[in-house]
């Protein structure tokens, strides 16, 4: 979706303002927000793509005025309601009132190190060979899907070169919507800065994205 998350090339947000000796957390609640989000995710009711889509589905005014952990928590409330773990009544009251759906699993403290160390690999074996090879000229599709996608707007309809064939990976555009993993080959595609930004672009700039095969056509 052409949502607030798709930031590449947007203007007006001001300087980057890196903080010297920045702490990992800026308030105690941010620690709990990280932990609650990871624990809730480990219930197994949704995947990372659905979770990203919940975040980018916040109203743009809400997204841009929220810190990243605030975005996480707002999206988490949506996911918990969607999957029947909390109700609007629970949230309004700040108490557990309604019965919850049964999770696939509950992450216990003693299992945390193993679960974090394992992560969630999303490469998948591919039956079909890759359509493109390194060096192939390609053009990204021009589309504007209303659902989740990982092809940023600035890189749509652009001519680039396959720099590397990666692996088969779960396709987020379907996986975010409960429509299956449908793995596809992923490629690193490099674009000249001038192809993307046109007049006035930095002539020394090359930008690459990692693109699923269905985002690409031969050029």
């Amino acid at each position: 979706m052409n949502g607030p998350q798709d930031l590449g090339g947007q203007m007006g947000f001001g300087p980057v303002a890196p903080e010297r000796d920045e702490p990992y957390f800026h308030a105690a609640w941010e620690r709990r927000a990280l932990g609650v989000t990871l624990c809730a995710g480990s219930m197994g009711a949704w995947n990372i793509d659905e979770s990203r889509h919940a975040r980018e589905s916040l109203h743009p005014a809400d997204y841009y005025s929220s810190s990243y952990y605030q975005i996480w928590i707002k999206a988490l409330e949506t996911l918990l309601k969607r999957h029947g773990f909390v109700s609007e009544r629970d949230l309004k009251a700040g108490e557990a009132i309604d019965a919850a759906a049964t999770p696939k699993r509950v992450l216990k403290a003693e299992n945390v190190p193993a679960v974090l160390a394992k992560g969630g690999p999303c490469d998948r074996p591919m039956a079909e060979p890759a359509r493109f090879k390194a060096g192939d000229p390609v053009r990204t599709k021009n589309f504007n899907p209303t659902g989740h996608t990982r092809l940023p707007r600035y890189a749509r309809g652009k001519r680039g070169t396959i720099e590397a064939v990666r692996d088969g990976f779960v396709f987020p555009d379907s996986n975010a919507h409960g429509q299956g993993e449908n793995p596809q080959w992923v490629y690193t595609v490099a674009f000249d800065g001038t192809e993307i930004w046109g007049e006035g672009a930095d002539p020394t700039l090359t930008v690459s994205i990692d693109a699923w095969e269905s985002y690409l056509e031969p050029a």
Partner: protein
Amino acid sequence: MSHDHDHDNELDPFAARVRALETILSRKGLIDPAAIDVIVDTYETKIGPRNGARVVAKAWSDPAYADWLKRDATAAIESLSYTGRQGEHMQAVFNTGDTHNLVVCTLCSCYPWSVLGLPPVWYKAPPYRSRAVIDPRGVLAEFGLTLPATTRIRVWDSTAELRYLVVPMRPEGTEGWSEEQLAALVSRDAMIGTALAQEPQQAGEPA
């Protein structure tokens, strides 16, 4: 801004909102609050940019390791036992005399947690995510880094599940340094691409 992070302001509505959510979920038996403590402790004290710095220092010291890191970063990094969440599929990109690498996630905040830890606020915020791909030199200038006009800038937008680690160039004057000494020259920002490795004179004489 206060740097006392141990206690929230009781009047902060967002702190109350997160506390309520945690209470609801634990009362329903859906989460274990002790698991949250372990997660927080892991990312606050165990996993951070020292992991990545050790990878870089080893690559500087050992050409065979550098070659492995180039070909199969996931396996080369796993050999140092840095694995896990948001580091499952790694790529290492090497700065050279004529190319500088910079990593961004314009669509969310993808970041190699297993080697760099949790991302800083600026990496997740709109100014960096919007400008890194269109005005990287302007962004680098805000970090105090001005590169020669002829240096090629390569920006990696991590739009899929690959996570990128920048391997900066080894500074001059570090011949014979141990990996531990070299790792002290490698900052988090150098491995994102918003800084270079520190020069030995900046870092002081090795211990």
